[in-house]
């Protein structure tokens, strides 16, 4: 890694750490951390910090990284800067499987069953998209297939909802909004566990990803084993996507926008740099979005998804305009 990258990464990490503390504190509006001198486990402040702020901050950091990495992997694999877990319908696969799980076993279904359902759903839908990608060569057409897949899934979810018990429905409705606030403290260990599984697998993906930059056919001559890599990539993307979708519901545009931002900042195709950058910038992006909802909380109630779309959508449009289109 070249010198300027290390400098840039250190700088981003410093900003990330500062903002993480600010976020843990609850944004600019409250000063919980400052009152911690009188920390005792029963004060309202410490309960809020432990039960509300901590899970939310951890979830934001992980969701931002995980979705962005999933986006990066897909963009490299499909050789398409507009690929991402939500636009290709992978998230909607998780969504559907979680819906089925919740509806069949009610809100008392365990965390593990929900997260497994989400990951399985993501894997299943990744293969559907992969199947289409073999038939549909044009990058934009593939995105349309993804959008159609999402639309198709959401109507199935609605059909399932129409015929389900009250409590299950309510918890699913809540889950469906896309939120980093629903996660509970006791779910955090499992989230971290799955995140780190994905995270450590990334180390072994750097070389294949760098080869995939020049296309699967060319990469094969340089020793890439396409079938094996395809499996591993889908598995890891699905872990990252499913993990977030299981606990936050659908959060849009992060996976799509962040990798493009990172490429723009670092101007490289070396995935060692890109992965590190994406992990940091992904967390940072969602952290800033959620800090905005914190700050506006007293004035207006805005769902996190509106803020990510507010920043994400223009970035995407800008990429489309800027790019010489190959289709």
């Amino acid at each position, binding site marked *: 890694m070249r010198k300027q990258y290390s400098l840039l990464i250190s700088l981003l990490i410093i900003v990330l750490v500062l903002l993480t503390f600010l976020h843990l504190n*609850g944004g600019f509006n*409250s000063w919980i951390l400052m009152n911690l001198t009188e920390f005792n486990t029963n004060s*309202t402040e410490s*309960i*809020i910090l432990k*039960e*509300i*702020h901590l899970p939310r901050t951890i979830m934001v950091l992980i969701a931002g990284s995980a979705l962005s990495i999933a986006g990066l992997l897909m963009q490299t694999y499909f050789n398409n800067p507009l690929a991402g877990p939500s636009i290709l319908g992978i998230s909607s696969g998780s969504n559907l499987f979680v819906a089925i799980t919740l509806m069949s076993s009610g*809100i*008392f279904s365990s965390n593990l069953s929900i997260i497994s359902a989400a990951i399985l759903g993501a894997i299943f839908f990744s293969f559907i998209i992969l199947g289409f990608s073999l038939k549909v060569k044009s990058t934009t057409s593939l995105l349309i297939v993804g959008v159609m897949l999402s639309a198709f899934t959401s109507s199935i979810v609605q059909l399932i909802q129409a015929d389900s018990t*009250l*409590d299950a*429905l*309510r*918890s699913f*409705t*809540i889950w469906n*909004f896309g*939120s980093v*606030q*629903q996660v*509970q*403290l*006791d779910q955090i260990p499992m989230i971290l566990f799955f995140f780190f599984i994905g995270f450590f697998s990334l180390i072994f993906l750097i070389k294949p990803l760098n080869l995939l930059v020049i296309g699967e056919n060319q990469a094969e001559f340089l020793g890439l084993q396409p079938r094996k890599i395809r499996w591993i990539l889908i598995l890891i993307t699905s872990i990252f996507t499913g993990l977030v979708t299981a606990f936050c519901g659908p959060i849009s545009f992060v996976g799509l926008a962040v990798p493009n931002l990172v490429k723009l900042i670092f101007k490289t195709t070396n995935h060692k740099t890109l992965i590190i950058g994406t992990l940091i910038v992904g967390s940072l992006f969602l952290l800033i979005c959620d800090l905005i909802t914190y700050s506006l*909380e007293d004035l207006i*109630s805005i*769902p*996190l998804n509106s803020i990510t779309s507010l920043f994400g959508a223009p970035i995407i449009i800008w990429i489309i305009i800027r790019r010489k289109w190959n289709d």
Partner: protein
Amino acid sequence: MKQVICTLFFGIVLFGCKSKKENYKSNKNENITFAKHFNIIKKGDKTIVSIIHPDNNKIDKTLYFNRNKPNTIWCNNITYHSNAVICFSSTFIGLLDKINELHRIKGVENKNLIYNNEIITKINNELIQELGSPETASTKKIINTKSELILFSGFGHEFPNEKKLNKLNILCLPIYDWKETHPLGKAEWIKLFGIITNKEKEATNYFNKLKARYFNLLKKYKNVKQSAPLFSGSLIGDFWFLPAGESYIAKLFKDARINYVEQKSKGTGSVSKSFEYCLKNYKNSSYWLNPGNKSIKSLVAQNEKYRLFDALKQNTYCYSHNPNLYWEKSAIEPDSLLMDLIQISHPELKLKRKLYFYKKLH
């Protein structure tokens, strides 16, 4: 399902319509004392009813009635009849029930939202049709019920396909009872239902008795000391919706001498708060109304963090209403609702009465 719809309705819809200034200066007939969104003027045999638009407080619809021609309504120079009615809100069923006019009902929204046994039996026997919500109800199905009048909760818009239905001599009448900010204002809409069904006298009688009962309660518990703090609602997505300080529910809380946590907030709809705000401010409150779940188990399964509230921890003061009964009867029996609230919030009175709308969560 029911609860979700009710809560969403109560939360989101009211939230969308909050804080409209009431600038309507009516030349009100003295008959209407509490309701603000309709108006009755009498001239000999003729009765003129104006429905007042909730957003701009202008007249939305003017209806003409003639005592010599029962079951007939004139609106915009078209003659309509009121023998067969569709009710898109169970509140209207409660109102019609009080004046024994349920037989006119030919269509409702959804059987699962109905409390009234007579209506449910008729739905089972296909004498009353289920039509779905106004947005999704098929016009063909509406026509097939041979109804002449559609009563729906108005939000300032026309009923879907209203012009077409008018041509088929079906009148679409928006009811703004949910916009009323006084509990008796909601109930006073029974007077309009009385005029429509030729039961004006019965309606007025009922309302006067109700008014007397309500004021008696107020008088009786005037000197009760203010209750411990009470909050209501639960999270919908990331936000917690509570009735705003000038809303109809807040007025009831006030009348029940309840220390309602958001009594000072502005607006007639609802206020939305973050979970953190709620935890900070309501953590030590004693009473939690309408958490929107049937049991504490399912409430906690939905969100583990609800346990942090004292009201739930102590497991004693969490109350939820029976939604179908509530939406059907609370508007027309605000005295029972008031009594429930007094009983819940003032255990020191040691009232032995059985709660009517509410049930303690277990």
